[in-house]
């Protein structure tokens, strides 16, 4: 089973939920945690994995063999991303614009273009005290997260429980991280920002046809519009985590909830059971 943990708004507690879920379940079943927030991966801070292997994330970019090139200009014409410019005597390649679609090398009439890997980040994995841990990280200055996310996702071992920590937002990196999961937990907080971004996240996950539920973090204030929205939309709130200084302080030191307050592990085990039940009954909040 693959469970993704997402949110529209950043900083609502995705990492806390993903790491606590993994931590609570690791002694009961094989658990894998994939940190797909490749721009700002944080799960390693909480789970302290022993990284034993890594591989580079490369995207294929065109390499032009000037000896074969006739400067016909076809490659620049077909490139949808303006990553190639053909001058009378040479071809300029702008690797940071290239999406790696492969069209130019396949279609070059002179077979003058080959694909060359350009390293944009790394995927690392190892053991975090019983949790099979994988994370991706793009290099500072690189723009494209999806190829790194794809490569992290390829390491998913669907035999056990796979937990995916998703980057914030609602655009392509989120889609890349969430798609193909069996269930999506959306973590939010009871504030106007939390609600606004939850609504967007719900639309995104529904677009992908994945059943979803909400985890309400930092609960306890007077603002109850998140609960109202969930009720109207028929979205179950499977876990409520109170706003407590103790939890925030643990988090600030890099200690996840289930580790710092072991009595909460039971809640995360229940959370998994609830998700299983929803999936078995097919009652996940799929419909608009």
């Amino acid at each position, binding site marked *: 089973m693959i469970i993704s943990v997402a949110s*529209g*708004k*950043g*900083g*609502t507690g995705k*990492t806390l939920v993903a790491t606590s879920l993994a931590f609570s379940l690791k002694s009961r079943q094989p658990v894998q945690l994939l940190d797909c*927030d490749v*721009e*700002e991966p*944080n799960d390693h*801070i909480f789970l302290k994995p022993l990284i034993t292997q890594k591989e580079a994330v490369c995207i*294929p970019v065109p390499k032009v063999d000037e000896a074969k090139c006739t400067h016909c200009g076809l490659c620049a014409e*077909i490139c*949808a*991303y303006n990553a190639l410019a053909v001058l009378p005597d040479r071809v300029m390649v702008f690797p940071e614009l290239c*999406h*790696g*679609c*492969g*069209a130019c090398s*396949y*279609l070059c009439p002179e077979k003058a273009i080959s694909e060359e890997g350009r390293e944009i980040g790394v995927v690392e994995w190892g053991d975090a005290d019983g949790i099979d841990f994988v994370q991706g990280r*793009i290099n*500072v*200055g*690189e*723009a*494209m*997260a999806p190829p790194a996310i794809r490569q992290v996702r390829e390491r998913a071992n669907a035999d056990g429980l796979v937990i995916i920590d998703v*980057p*914030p*937002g*609602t*655009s*392509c*990196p*989120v*889609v890349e991280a969430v*798609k193909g999961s069996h269930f999506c937990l959306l973590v939010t907080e009871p*504030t*106007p*920002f939390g609600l*606004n*971004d939850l609504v*967007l*996240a719900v*639309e*995104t996950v529904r*677009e*992908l046809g994945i059943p979803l539920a909400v985890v309400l973090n930092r609960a306890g*204030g*007077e*603002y109850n519009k998140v609960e109202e929205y969930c009720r109207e939309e028929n979205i179950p709130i499977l876990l409520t985590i109170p706003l407590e*200084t103790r939890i*925030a*302080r643990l*988090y*600030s*030191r*890099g200690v996840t909830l289930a580790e710092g307050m072991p009595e909460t592990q039971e809640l995360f085990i229940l959370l998994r059971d609830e998700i299983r039940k929803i999936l078995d009954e097919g009652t996940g909040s799929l419909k608009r």
Partner: protein
Amino acid sequence: MKELVVLSGKGGTGKTSIVGSLAALAEDKVLADCDVDAADLHLLLEPVVRQKQEFWSGQVAVIDQEKCTQCGLCPELCHFEAIKDFRVDPVSCEGCGFCRRICPVEAITMKENLSGHWFVSDTEYGPLVHARLGIAQENSGKLVALVRQQAREMAEERGAAFIISDGPPGIGCPVISSLSGAHMALLVTEPTLSGIHDLERVLGVCRHFNVPALVCINKYDINEENSRRIEDYCREQGVEVAARIPFDNIVTEAMVKGQPVVQYNGDSPVSRQIKRLWQNIAGRLAAN
């Protein structure tokens, strides 16, 4: 005219709350919300939309099922695994057009893609350029670039002194698009290990693009030891810590009321720190 962009790396550190207050404090400015996939600034500024424009960007492939002979070439060549059962998954399709070019029976066409909308609005605090990326869309970087360009044109027309823009979380495509060419970045962090880790990466991006940075520690008192670590780190890096804002629930109260906190309670310690912060920023922007 000077452009300030507010970033954080980690989400949820308080970027938007601080930008809302800077909007209320700064005179003679244009505001921009560059977080196009989970925009929240409008919740504090209550904009009246004056202009709404469509954002068309990129293309999506469409297969004509009548013409398709199911030869299998396009799913084999698509680098984005976007073609399944001879249909294009618009979410995975990156619009490169490779499939259209190689289809032996010309069954594939490219359709222009409506990726979102952008708006020019009036607020109590001045004009705001903002946008809404469509659900699960790509090209957030291009939409951010468009928002900034509109804000710049408007600022020039009005002879405004400042552009203040609220940036997205992370360090990837939309962040780079928000940052490159700005005069200064304000990095809002929090004293958690995650906050520190992410600050280091976003500061790296500022360096990469040669944009001077200032740091603001939000909720500094939730872990003062970590706040000192951030200060030490910033000193080593030669980056000024321009404000230490205490944790206070009035920030959430102000958000629930839909007001910038300096407006909601101007005498609170939080507001006093933000006022000092703006004086510092304005002075530096004027000098650089």
